[in-house]
């Protein structure tokens, strides 16, 4: 059985302007009946498979985002919904904004838009489901485990250093 037959999702509002949240909530109302696809809006990270994050990450909520992500059991996918969640968007240069969701946790699908359109959101979730299936297959074969947020931070540091090192080399040449 594919795991995408029963995707439970969790919606977290980072520092969004609420525009994206309204779109996400509207898409999960009975009007559109996401239960058709087995989707349940859980509100509990321990039961969730898909993490919908809206808005950028700021210095206050970064730990919350990390904790939610770490509490979700594998396999899991993260969706950055809206341009703020993708890279900080309109709030990017604010003093308290660190950037998009991927500044603290690994993101699988980026859904652009300000606010994110329901069509784009649904498209994003469909893509996320495919990734979820792939991850679950790999996990069954014992080839996959997602990074914890701490490991992700480490890997970010390394790549940053790499980029710096690459820059130095260029200068030297």
């Amino acid at each position, binding site marked *: 059985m594919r795991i995408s037959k029963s995707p439970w999702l969790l919606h977290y509002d980072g520092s969004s302007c609420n525009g994206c949240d309204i779109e996400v909530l509207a898409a999960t109302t009975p009007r559109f009946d996401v*239960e058709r696809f087995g989707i349940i809006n*859980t509100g*509990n990270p321990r039961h969730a*498979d898909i993490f919908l994050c809206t808005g950028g990450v700021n210095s206050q909520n970064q730990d919350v985002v990390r904790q939610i992500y770490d509490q979700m*059991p594998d396999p899991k996918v993260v969706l950055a919904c809206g341009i703020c969640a993708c890279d900080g968007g309109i709030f990017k240069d604010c003093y308290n904004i660190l950037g998009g969701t991927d500044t603290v946790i690994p993101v699988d699908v980026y859904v652009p838009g300000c606010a994110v359109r329901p069509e784009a959101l649904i498209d994003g979730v469909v893509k996320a489901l495919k990734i979820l299936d792939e991850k679950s297959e790999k996990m069954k074969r014992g080839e996959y485990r997602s990074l914890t947020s701490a490991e992700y931070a480490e890997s970010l540091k390394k790549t940053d250093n790499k980029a710096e090192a690459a820059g130095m080399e260029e200068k030297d040449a």
Partner: protein
Amino acid sequence: MTVYSTAAVIIYLVFSPFIACLFSGVDRIVTARMQGRRGPKLMQPWYDIVKLFSKESTSVNDIQKILVMAHCFFAIFSGAIFFAGGDVLLVLFALTMAEVFLILAAYSVNAAYSEIGAQRELLQMMAYEPMTLLTAVGFYLSTGSFRVDEIINTELPLVIKMPGFFIGFCFILIVKFRKSPFDLSTSHHAHQELIKGLTGDLSGPGYGFSELAELYEEILMLGIAGLFFITSDPISFLWAFIAIVLIMFCMSLIDNIFPRVKWEVLLKTAWLVTLFAGGMNLVILSYIGK
């Protein structure tokens, strides 16, 4: 154990999850239709539970794992006693024990939502346990036995002698099936204030075990409801099945008509219903009995 009871127990152990999933799948579709939606696929509850077991196994602490397994074991065990034709009292106490293990599991994680959930589960048990025990007493008064295999050996369906008990039992079934009130210790409804409360800190297979236990428990509760209709005549099993389907439908209907009942209302009404429906029936039955 006779051949029949052995067969019944094996069927119960093997097929309960499928049957319970089928029941709750139909229930979810019916609920969706009542709300003007299409609803999930028929076997959606089955997909959900299979998914839970395929997820990563994480638990907050080791004790939690053991307690949830114990919960699952005792839930299955109490059903097995019932379908083997054992003592109803033993069934009910074993079930209570299962319940207590789940509550301990929730307390063991030391998390706010689990704790409130566990507390509400205790209150909820206090609300419905008197009625389940009264029902057992009712069975004894009308048949002279607590044993299931002797209880079903009657001429007339017991619901005729025990209408009050039946109403009371159906009332607590709504709670047992975690439908109404919406802010129960762990309600089935997506939006509820406790974020799954009692089961909030279970994840992956751990949550799967608690869901599995619930499926077995549902079959057991429906079995007890069926006991009101089953007589020595084999055709009565059909009546019992029809009655169970009707009960399930009424539960959905009530749940959809009163979607925002709170737990305080449950506490107040559960004992009232127990006292009036169960109590009056008990008094009448004990006089007739003599």
